[in-house]
């Protein structure tokens, strides 16, 4: 079965600092991967998705970028964080045989 790891679990960063959140998947190969953000008390917004190494699609214009340097690694980055980047970031992977996404434990980011 698949397992998703995300780190760090919690992060507090000053405005203007860089960001790197990592997501790794075990138990599958060539998965579709997704980054979602959840603002406090709100639903999930899809930020990026990737169908393969080096293939990144952006859903909304923003201060963030994503990369997929390896088959099972998905990274969310920013060069300069904004206050509005605060939120809960979730990585997800697709179980193709069932067409369902399952999620990692998430990273709570606070930008001060």
């Amino acid at each position, binding site marked *: 079965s698949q397992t998703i790891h995300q780190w760090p679990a919690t992060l507090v960063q000053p405005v203007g600092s860089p960001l790197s959140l990592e997501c790794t998947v075990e138990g599958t190969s060539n998965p*579709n991967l*997704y980054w979602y953000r*959840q603002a406090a008390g*709100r*639903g*999930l917004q*899809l930020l990026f*998705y990737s*169908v393969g190494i080096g293939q990144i*699609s952006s*859903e909304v214009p923003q201060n963030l970028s994503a990369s997929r340097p390896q088959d099972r690694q998905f990274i969310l980055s920013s060069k300069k964080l904004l206050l509005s980047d605060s939120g*809960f970031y*979730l990585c*997800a992977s*697709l179980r*193709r045989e*069932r*067409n*369902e*996404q*399952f*999620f990692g*434990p*998430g990273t*709570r980011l606070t930008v001060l």
Partner: protein
Amino acid sequence: AQTVTQSQPEMSVQEAETVTLSCTYDTSENNYYLFWYKQPPSRQMILVIRQEAYKQQNATENRFSVNFQKAAKSFSLKISDSQLGDTAMYFCAFLFTGTASKLTFGTGTRLQVTL
């Protein structure tokens, strides 16, 4: 583009009772998948139940069942014999495989199970 609407921001139910959470969606597609996810205070997103649109039979997982009305584009979740551990945010979500299997989420319903 698909949209998912959850019109109940908050609901409350007593332990052992039954509660139904509502969800409607809009799509022009014919083959798709619908899901209910649970997000407890830990914020981990947990898949509760899955429905394939081409199957008429409503999905059931233990105490959780859905009422899927394809023509009406309605997908409600029924929780029977509610337990304190069911307290969570519940999100309805839509997936179409033709768009890289992206999920579109509703805004969620906060369910509180009380004694």
